[in-house]
C-alpha cells in the first residue's frame, strides 16, 4: 500500500508544535500506521496553481488506519501549517472517503480519530470546501448512527474554526488541550467585521479565555482535556472512544437542553471568568495559571463539563 516510514516521535513531544504526520506517528502504536492515498500518489489540489500557490502532495490531509493502544482505528489528520489546514476539494474528499468507508463497512474499525487543525474553508476553493464540510458533517452523523465513535482531537496551531469548529461539534466526543482553540468566527474575523470593541484579537488573554481549551472544557464544549503532548492526546482519545454517545433523539434532546441551559446560566456573563464563577469556581482568575493536573481536578467538580448530550 505504501511505505511512508514513521520517525519515532516521543511521548512528550508537543502536540501544538508537531506536524500532522508527527502527531499520527506519535499517537498510534509504532509501525501500525498505514496511509491511504499517500503523497507518492500526488493527490493534490488542481486549483492552487491559479493563485500561484504551492501544492502539497497530500493536500494537507493524511488518512489511514492503525492501532491506538492496541485498538484498531481509522485516522485522519489535517496539517494546520499548510493553507491553515483548510477544507478544500481534495482535502475534504479524503476525509469524506474515510468516514463513509467506516459508515458502510462494519468490518472496518468502529472508531475514527479526527486530528483537526483547521481555520475552516480554503477560500481559494471556497465553494468546494464549504460543501466538503457539509458532506463530512453528514457522513460523521451517518457513521455515528451506524455505531462508529468519531473522536475529534483539537490542539493544533490552526485550532478548529469555521467549518472545522462545526465538524468538531458534530463528532461523538471532543478532546482539547489548553492550546487548542475552537469556535466559528475567529477573533480576527470578528474584529475586522465588528470592530475592536466587540473583540480585540490582539488581547491574547481574552482570546485564550473565549476560544481556548480550558474554557471549552469547563462549559462542556469539549469532553476531555489533554495535556499538550502526544501521550496526553493518546490517553484522552482512548478514554473517549468507549464513552461515545449514540446519535439518537434522546441524545439530541439532551443536547438541546444542555445548550439552552447554558444560554440561561451565562446570560449575564460578559467574560469567561464570570462564567467560570457561575460554574462554582471560587477563584476563576487562577484557572489561567494553574497546571494541567490542578485544572483536571477542578473540572471533575464542574457538573456542566461532562455530559452525554452531543
Amino acid at each position, binding site marked *: 500500500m505504501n511505505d511512508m516510514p514513521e520517525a519515532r516521535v516521543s511521548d512528550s513531544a508537543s502536540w501544538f508544535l508537531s506536524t500532522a504526520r508527527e502527531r499520527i506517528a506519535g499517537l498510534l502504536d509504532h509501525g501500525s500506521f498505514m496511509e491511504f*492515498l499517500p503523497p507518492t500518489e500526488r*493527490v493534490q489540489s488542481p*486549483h492552487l496553481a*491559479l*493563485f500561484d500557490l504551492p501544492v502539497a502532495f497530500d493536500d494537507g490531509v493524511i488518512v489511514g*488506519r492503525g492501532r491506538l493502544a492496541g485498538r484498531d482505528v481509522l485516522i485522519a489528520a489535517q496539517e494546520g501549517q499548510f493553507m491553515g489546514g483548510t477544507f478544500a*476539494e*481534495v482535502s*475534504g*474528499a479524503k476525509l469524506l*472517503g474515510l468516514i*463513509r*468507508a*467506516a459508515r*458502510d463497512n462494519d468490518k*472496518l474499525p468502529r472508531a475514527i480519530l479526527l486530528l483537526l487543525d483547521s481555520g475552516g*474553508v480554503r*477560500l481559494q*476553493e*471556497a*465553494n*468546494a470546501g*464549504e*460543501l*466538503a464540510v*457539509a458532506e463530512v*458533517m*453528514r457522513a460523521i*452523523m*451517518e457513521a455515528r448512527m451506524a455505531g462508529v465513535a468519531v473522536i475529534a482531537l483539537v490542539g493544533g496551531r490552526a485550532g478548529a474554526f*469555521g467549518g472545522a*469548529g*462545526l*465538524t468538531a*461539534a*458534530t463528532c461523538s466526543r471532543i478532546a482539547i488541550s489548553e492550546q487548542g482553540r*475552537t*469556535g*466559528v*468566527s475567529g477573533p480576527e474575523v*470578528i474584529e*475586522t467585521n*465588528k470592530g475592536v470593541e*466587540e*473583540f480585540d484579537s490582539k488581547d491574547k488573554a481574552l482570546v485564550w479565555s*473565549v476560544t481556548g481549551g480550558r*474554557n471549552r472544557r469547563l462549559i462542556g*464544549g469539549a469532553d476531555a482535556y489533554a495535556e499538550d503532548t502526544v501521550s496526553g492526546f493518546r490517553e484522552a482519545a482512548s478514554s473517549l472512544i468507549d464513552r461515545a454517545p449514540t*446519535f439518537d*433523539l434522546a441524545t*439530541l434532546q439532551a*443536547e*438541546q437542553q444542555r*445548550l439552552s441551559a*447554558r*444560554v440561561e446560566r*451565562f446570560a449575564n*456573563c460578559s*467574560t469567561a471568568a464570570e*462564567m467560570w464563577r457561575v460554574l462554582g469556581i471560587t477563584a476563576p482568575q487562577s484557572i489561567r495559571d494553574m497546571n494541567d493536573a490542578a485544572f483536571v481536578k477542578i473540572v471533575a467538580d464542574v457538573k456542566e463539563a461532562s455530559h452525554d448530550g452531543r
Partner: protein
Amino acid sequence: MTVADILAGLFPGGHDVAERPDHLILGSGRRENGGTVSIIGIDDGEPLGISGVLPLAERVLDVIAAGGNIPILVIVDTQGQRMARHDEMLGLNEYLAHLAKCLRLASHEGHPTVGLNYGKAAAGAFLATALATDVLFAMPGAEPAVMDLPSMARVTKLPEEKLKELSQTTPVFAPGLRSMIEVGAVAGSWDPAKPLSQQFEAALAAITKQDLRDMTGARRGGRKLAATIAGRVAAAAIG
C-alpha cells in the same frame, strides 16, 4: 420575491408562518394532498446566532418526537453566523452543529428535509441550515456564498479585480448561485413563473437516501475530483 410570496406560492392551501421580531421562520404549511409541512428558517439576511438556533432546533426535535413522516422545509436568507464575542464564548460551533444534527436525525427518522435559499446564505449558518438538508434548491436571485469577493480579497491578499477575473474561470471559488449549482451544493433553482407547490412536491419525491452532492458536482463539472477521491480513499480503506 419576499418570504411571504414564496410561502404563498408553496402552500396555496395556507400556512401559519407569521413575521417575528427575531426574523426566525417557524410554522407549518398545508400540502395540496392535505398533509402538513413543518417550516423553519431565517429571514431578512439575519445572522444566525445561539438565540436563533435553539427555537429552530427545538421545532425539529418536536417534529421527530411527534413521529409520523411530515417533511421539513428549511427556508433561509442569512448573511452568515452571528459574529459576536458572547456567542463565541458560549460555543457557537456547538449550537450550529446541533441544528445540523437535528435536521439529519429528522431525515433519518423519516422526515424528508428540503432546503430553500432565497436571499443570502453564507458560511457557518449555511452549514447549519440549508446545507444540512436532504436536498437544497434556490430561488433565482439567491446569493449563496462562502464569502463575498471584497472580503476574500482581504484574506487572500489578492486584488479584487484578479479575483473577479478568476471567478469567471472556476466555480470552485466564485461566489453565487451558478457556482453552487455547478459544484453540486444546490440541486437547482425553482422557476417563480410556475407553481412553487408543484416544484416542492417534485423535490420531495426525488429525495435519495444517499448524499449524492459529490457525484452531482462531478457530473456538472464544477467539482471534478471530489467524488473520485472520496471513492479511492474508501476503496483503499476496505482494502
